[in-house]
């Protein structure tokens, strides 16, 4: 355990140094050309310097002064993007060489009848693994520093409230910690112990602390509201419910209050924080849902449920595939109402025999099927009904079905 603590301390120190470096270095925009700048640098003929005589680059390529190679390529007139990729290839070549020195025996022993058994988990020693992970991190850091990332991640719209420099800092911290976590995972050889969990917990806490340290107290609050687990869940629901920003904020506040009271803040905890029974929890969830329902109103609530129903989602896909009228999913889904109405009418008819009732249900099923075919076309309807509206098959056998917002039942199963 002591050794783990030392290793973690070393990692934390490394990270602190990295943070210091990130915080005090020039803004990333000044260090790397933006996409637009690179494009104009790359392929605008006007940006090509005056012709220079053929020059021998052998020494520049042989050296490990990658920054100098990049400058030289730029000076010679290499487009920015290509110059960076050339230097990236040079950095990776060196990495490959150093990798071979650390693990010279790590060649594949794959044969045609079995995969190689010298996957790094099998063949490399712990020391080799540690050295390779350190080398991989060093290489990635060198690449980032000299030539920038090989691909730009899509901007995270949740962080749009932050100045660009802070956004980049946070992305960098996230990336660094992800690498550290991956490194810890790799070094477990697939055998996780309590000390691994402790390390992961420590990294989680350190990452959170580092990220929060980048922001002002106001920014932290907004950051939490946009990126926490509660926010992630709510963003998903928000897109179904069509929430406005104000509604999102209101519901977020309600959810956070309950979570703060009852949920463990430790994502590695085996179980939830004690102090609340399942029944109590269910009551609170219901009270919360009632509040959300009151906030968004019945129509949006029902609509959100409908959109999450697999039957409806498949109708949306069919509509898209066959360029059907945009109201097709709603029209087909609304056939459920016809089923409800017809069955209520049958219930009200006291003179109908059991056989007559069964026949009416079979007729209803045929009518519904025919309408689905009318909306989707015969082949698409067949494909749709094979895996959706499964209650229709039961109805076609003369059995009564009851359709709920989230499921369906037969009368027999409800009576049981």
């Amino acid at each position: 355990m002591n050794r783990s603590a030392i290793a973690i301390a070393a990692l934390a120190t490394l990270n602190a140094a990295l943070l210091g470096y990130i915080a005090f270095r020039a803004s990333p925009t000044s260090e790397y050309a933006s996409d637009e700048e690179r494009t104009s640098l790359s392929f605008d003929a006007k940006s090509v310097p005056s012709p220079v005589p053929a020059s021998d680059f052998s020494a520049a390529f042989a050296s490990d002064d990658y920054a100098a190679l990049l400058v030289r390529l730029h000076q010679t007139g290499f487009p920015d993007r290509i110059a960076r990729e050339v230097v990236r290839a040079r950095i990776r070549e060196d990495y490959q060489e150093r990798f071979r020195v650390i693990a010279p025996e790590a060649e594949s022993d794959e044969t045609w009848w079995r995969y190689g058994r010298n996957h790094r988990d099998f063949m490399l020693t712990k020391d080799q693994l540690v050295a390779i992970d350190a080398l991989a991190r060093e290489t990635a850091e060198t690449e980032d520093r000299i030539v920038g990332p090989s691909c730009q991640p899509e901007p995270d719209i949740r962080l749009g409230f932050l100045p660009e420099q802070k956004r980049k800092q946070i992305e960098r911290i996230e990336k660094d910690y992800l690498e550290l976590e991956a490194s810890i995972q790799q070094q477990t050889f697939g055998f996780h112990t309590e000390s691994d969990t402790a390390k992961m917990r420590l990294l989680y806490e350190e990452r959170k602390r580092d990220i929060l340290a980048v922001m002002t107290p106001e920014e932290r609050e907004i950051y939490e509201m946009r990126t926490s687990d509660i926010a992630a869940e709510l963003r998903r629901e928000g897109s179904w419910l069509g929430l406005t920003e104000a509604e999102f904020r209101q519901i977020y506040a309600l959810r956070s209050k309950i979570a703060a009271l009852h949920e463990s803040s430790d994502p590695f905890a085996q179980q939830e924080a004690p102090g609340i029974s399942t029944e109590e929890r269910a009551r609170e969830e219901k009270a919360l849902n009632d509040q959300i329902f009151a906030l968004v109103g019945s129509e949006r609530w029902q609509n959100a449920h409908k959109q999450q129903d697999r039957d409806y989602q498949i109708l949306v896909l069919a509509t898209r595939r066959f360029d059907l009228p945009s109201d097709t999913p709603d029209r087909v889904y609304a056939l459920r109402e016809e089923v409800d109405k017809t069955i209520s009418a049958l219930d009200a008819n006291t003179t109908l025999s059991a056989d007559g009732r069964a026949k009416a249900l079979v007729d209803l099923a045929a009518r519904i099927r025919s309408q689905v075919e009318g909306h989707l076309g015969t082949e698409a309807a067949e494909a749709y009904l094979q895996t959706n509206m499964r209650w229709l098959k039961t109805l076609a056998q003369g059995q009564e079905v009851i359709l709920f917002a989230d499921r369906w039942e037969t009368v027999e199963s409800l009576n049981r």
Partner: protein
Amino acid sequence: MKALPLLLAASLVVNAALVTVTLRRPSSDTSAPASASTTARPTEGSGTLNSTGIQLSPELVSALNGNDTQALRDLLRAAGLSDDLVRTIVQMRIWKNYEARFKALHPEPDPNQPWWKDDRDRQDGWRGLTKAQREESRRLQREVRDETERLLGPDTPKSNRGWQDQRLAFLPEDKIKALREIQQDYQELMSEIHQDSQGFRLASDAEKLRFLQEEQKRDIEALMTPEERQAYELRMSNTAQQLRHKMTQFDATEQEYLAIFPLQKAFDEKYNPPHDGYSPHPERDQNYWKERREAEKQLQEQIRSVIGEERYAESLRLQDNDWRQLEAATRRLDLPADTPSRLYALRDTAAANVQQIADNPALGFDEKKAALAAVAARTRDQIRTSLGAEGAEAYFKNNGMGWLKELEKGNTITFREDATGWDTKALPKPPKPAAK
């Protein structure tokens, strides 16, 4: 429906022509197109860069900023850059010519998109595009690929980090290349069907896919001699894909694989037929499952007889969770190499002790329960001694020797012969005292 074979036939004619061309091409010219053969190529090393004699001329720099990709390729080669780097740079320049058109089809996310909502359309990938846009995107991709191949030849394994599929090593280089082209062509056609389905699949989609798979198989077979076909089946069939995993687990020899393959294939043909991913699976009654279990047992027996008792036992052990967790712990904790076999043997000791306890008429119900718990405690102690407290805790948590819990509850256990786990049985309850 009849339009389908016609539609696909056009693609297949093109494919057949491609196979013929490939086969007729001299084998010495398989790695680069004809247009490249007259160009000076001073570096042939496998490294990313060749750092000797690299001359970057003003003409090259101009070409890097121009549109003539063929001239650029020739100048890069003449400058002394390695094949890999030439490929990277030329590909970047080709891509540049198409970049704007691809970006128009796949626009950047709206920066003003509400932060409080997930963008479901973007998560759907291809589904955000209309049919016409998808077709345009595919057309552009094909153009990029054709242009790349025209200038640089196909992406060979050498340019793919040196990885080579060992399973195809029995084929000559030109046939490997032709095979890859066939696979790529059919993959594209199948991928188009998937994309066009937009997540909503019809029976006719499944039929198209089946047709393509059959045609692909036919084209591949046409490429090979009867002996090569047999070797291909042995290496690339569905049975081979599954078997390869198992063979890796117990480090099988080639002879063992060759002996097991026909047995497994016969089983798969009857019980694991390929499925189109669309049609409902046929309904199976209890008789089917009973028959299948019997056939599986028979298959295991056949395997046992062809690879021998010792290797069979070893293969079962290597698939057992108790063993795999011990191997993982040994690697992780840097333990002596014999740790897994030493600790795995505790199972046999425990099983023998359990049997003795269960059969011992001198022991009462409670004494037997206590004795079983003592066996479990002894076994756990031995694991702790070897793995250390933290290692043992992790081992038990990962369900290593999960059967110990049964002993602690006072139940007996027997290990199944096929290494699929263990069976447990409660001790017979003591007879109730007779009523007075």
